[in-house]
C-alpha cells in the first residue's frame, strides 16, 4: 500500500511553510512560485479558507493518459506519478487536464514539475506544524477521517441534546 500526502483544510492556517520547503528541497532555492505545492487562499465574506493544492497521485491519472510524450509514469516504489524530464515537451497538456491544476511547467527548467513525494520523504509534511498535511497509509488515513467524522457527529449531537 502506498503512502499518500493528505490534506486537512480545517487545520491549514495558510502559512506557506510547505511551499518554501518544497522549493528549497527540490530546486535548491526558496521560491514559492516554483514550488510543487501551493496554498490557495479564498475569501468569502468573513471566512478565509486556505487549501494546499498538490498532486493527488490519482489512481488513474489523466495527466499520464494524456501526455503526448508519454513522459509520465508511476514510480512503483513510492507510488508517485513522476516525469521523465528528458521526454517532457513542456507542452502544458498535463496542466490543462489535471482537475486540480497541480502540475506546472517550470519557467526555469521548461519541463513539467510536479510532486514526486520527495522520493518517499515529503518535506512539506515535515514543516507543517498544524499537521494539516500528513503522510500516511491510504487505508489508515481513510479510517482516521471516518473517526474524525464520528467525533464531529457526537459533538453536534451533544449540542443538540443540550438545547
Amino acid at each position: 500500500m502506498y503512502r499518500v500526502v493528505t490534506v486537512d483544510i480545517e487545520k491549514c492556517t495558510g502559512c506557506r511553510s510547505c511551499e518554501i520547503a518544497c522549493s528549497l528541497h527540490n530546486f535548491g532555492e526558496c521560491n514559492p512560485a516554483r514550488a510543487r505545492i501551493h496554498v490557495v487562499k479564498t475569501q468569502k465574506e468573513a471566512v478565509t479558507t486556505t487549501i494546499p493544492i498538490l498532486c493527488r497521485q490519482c489512481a488513474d491519472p489523466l495527466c499520464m493518459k494524456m501526455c503526448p510524450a508519454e513522459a509520465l509514469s508511476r514510480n512503483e516504489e513510492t507510488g508517485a506519478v513522476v516525469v521523465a524530464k528528458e521526454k517532457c515537451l513542456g507542452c502544458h497538456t498535463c496542466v490543462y487536464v489535471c482537475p486540480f491544476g497541480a502540475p506546472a511547467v517550470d519557467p526555469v527548467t521548461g519541463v513539467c514539475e510536479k510532486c514526486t513525494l520527495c522520493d518517499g520523504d515529503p518535506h512539506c509534511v515535515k514543516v507543517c506544524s498544524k499537521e494539516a498535511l500528513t503522510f500516511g497509509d491510504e487505508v489508515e488515513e481513510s479510517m482516521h477521517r471516518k473517526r474524525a467524522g464520528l467525533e464531529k457527529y457526537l459533538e453536534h449531537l451533544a449540542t443538540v441534546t443540550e438545547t
Partner: protein
Amino acid sequence: MPFLNAGRILHVDLTTGETRTQATKEYADRYLGGRAINAALVYDLVGPDTDALGPENILSLGVGPLGGTSYPGCSRLDVMAKSPVTNLLGDSNMGGYWAAELKYAGYDHLVLHGRSEKPVYVWIHNDKVELRDAARLLGKNTVDTQQAILDELDNPNVKVISIGPAGENLVTWADLHQGTCHAAARTGMGAVLGSKNVKALAVRGTQGIKVADPDALMTACLEAHTAIRGSEMFGEYSTVGTSWCEASYGRSGIECGGDGHEGPIPDWDPHRDQAFDQFWTEYGIKRTGCMGCPVHCMETYFVPGVGSASMSCELYTQTTGELRQDLLRGIKLVKLCQEMGIDETSVSNLLQWLLVLKDMGVIDDSHLDGVPLAWGDVDSQVELTKKVIFREGVGDVFADGLLAAAQHLDARTAPGPRGGASTYVYAMQVNNNPMYGINPRVKSMALAYAVGRRSDCISDLNMQDFDIMSVSAEYPGWTDEQRHEAAEFDAETARYVSGEPRAADFDVIDGKAMIVHDMGRTVGMADMAGTCKQHLKWLYLDSTPAHMSAAISAGVGKTVTADDLMWASLQLRTLERALECRWGRRREHDTIPEKEFDKLVSQGVFKGRSYTSREDLEAMKDEYYWLRGWDKATGIPYGETLRDFGLDHVADDLARLGILPACADEQQRRAGIAKASTLGYVWPELVGRDNPGGNKAPWAADEPEADAQPVAVGGADAETS
C-alpha cells in the same frame, strides 16, 4: 551570485518618479540586514534637521537574510524612518506575507524618497516598478484598499501594504497594514507613508532566494522547527495565541489600564481565563499567522454586528481598561483601529489619559466636543477615536500627538485640578511616544522604557522579563510546590543571564541592566535576520541564535556563529543610538514619566512592593550605558565603541558635529563591553573580536565581483509612470 539576500536595494524617488537599484552588498558586508541595514540607510540618507513628515525623510522597508527562506518565522519586515511621534528613531516591525514577497521580487529593501505630487501606489512586479494612480483608493480602509488593488491588478497573489484614512490624514500614530491584522503599528510609519502621498505598496515576486547549501539550510531549518515545536510553551502559544500574555499580565498586576494609569481595573479575576476560552469557542473561526510560521499566534473572529477581525494580543493587552474584560465590546475598537490604520496602543493610551484627566476634574465633555467619554463605554471611545482619525474638531489637535493635545488642553483648563502642572505630566509617554499597558514601576520595565530604542519598551525587551516572569509562580491552580519550582527556575535563569544572584528579585536593581541588555540584543538578532523574535528562547519559544546562525551559515556558505550575530546586534544598537543622538537624544531623554517615580504598584503580586525611584533608574542607566560602551554623562556612544563595531564613519560624523564624547577610562569601557558580550545564555567570550576584518563583517561575501552584475530597474525592462 549573492546568497540569502535578494541582492538589491530598490530606491523609489516619488518626487521625480525615478527608480534605481543599489547592490545590497554595499551595506550587507558591514551589517547583517533588516533592521541594521535600515538603520544604516536612515543614517546615511536622513539629516539631523529633517522634518519627519517632509519629503526629505525616507521610509525604508527591509527584510533580513533569513526572510522568505524556510527558517520558521521568516516573515518579518522592519520599517524605519524618522518618527513624527518622537522626532527620533521611528521603527516598527511587522509580520504577514509582504516581506517574503519583496525578496521573491528581487529586493531586500525598498526605500521611498521624496513626495509624490498625486496620490499613488507603488506596484513592484519583479523587475517592473510602477507608480500607479491611487486617487480612487483614497478614503478606503486598509482591508478594502488591499482588495481594490488585487482586483485592479487582477492578481490574487499580490501582497499589499496599505495605510487607512488615519495615514492619509497624517494622524501621528497612523500605521501600515497588511492583511487584516499584520501591522507596523508603532512610531507613526503610516503617517510617513501618507506624507509621501503613497496609499499602498503592492508587490509580487516569482524569483528565488539563492542559497549556498540547500540541504544544509533545510536541515538547519528543520532543527529550528523541531526546537520551536518542542518548546514547553508551544502548545499554549499555537492554540491560545498571544492572548495568554494578557492572562500573565493580569495575574501579575503589571497591566495598568493599558498605559500605566490607575483606572478602575480590578484585580485579576481568574474567570477571565474562562472568558477568553468562551470568546474563542463562540466567535473564533480559525487560527492564523504569518508566512512560514509554525506557531500561528493569531486568531480570526466573527462577531455578529461587528464583523470579522483577526488579531493576536491586541484585544487582550491594549484596549482601554475595562474593555479588555468585555471582549465583545473591546473588539469594536480593535477592528476600528485595524481598518482605519492607526496604532491601537497609542489610541488606547490617549483615551485613558483623557479619562484620567476627566476623573481628576481637569477636563469635561465640553473639551471633547461633547463626546461623553467614559470608562468601559466602547461607543464613546469609538466616537472620539473617529474624531482623531478624521481630524474632526478637537480630534484634529489630538491627531498631532500627546504633546500637542496637552498644550491645547492646558490653554483651556483651570490649573487647579491638575495641581498647577501641565496635563502632559499625566500623560504616559516616553519622548512623546504613548506607552504600552505595562507598568513602569517595575524596575526592569522602567529601564526598558527609558533606554529602549524608539522610546518604548517592546523594542528592546519584548515585555517579558525575569522579575515579571517570577509572577508565573502565581499561576492559578498551582500547588505550592509548583509555585516554588517556577520561582526557582526564573531566579536561576535570571542569575545565569545577568551573573547577579538577586537578579530575579524585583525589590533590587541588581542585574536589571544586564537582563534588559540581553533581551535587547536577542531581539536585535531576530530583527536583523528577518525572523520572528517571539520564537527565540526567553522570548517564549525555544529556538536560539545558534539555530539562526546555523541557517545563515548554510545559506551564505561560510561559518557564521551565534557570536557573530551577537556582535552584529551590539553593532546595531550602537548605530541606532548614534543615529538618535545625532537627532538630539541624550541621557536626560532616557526616562519614564516623572509622576511614576516612587509610586508603588497598586495591585497584583507586586502590590505595595515594587516601585522605581529616580535614583534606581539613574543607577540602572549608568550600568546599561557601561555595558553598551556609551558615555554616562551624555548617553552618546564613545568613538572607541563606534570603531569597535566598524562604525568609523559614524564616529567621524559625531566628531564633526562636536558631540563625540571622550572616553577617559578605556579599560572600564572595554570591561563593560566584555561583560555585555560574555554573559547571557549562549555566549562564549568575544575577546579579541572587536572589528573583525576591518569594516567587513564575518558574513560578508568573499568575491567582491560576485554580485556586481548590474540589474536594471528604471532602465529598459522597467516601466515608470
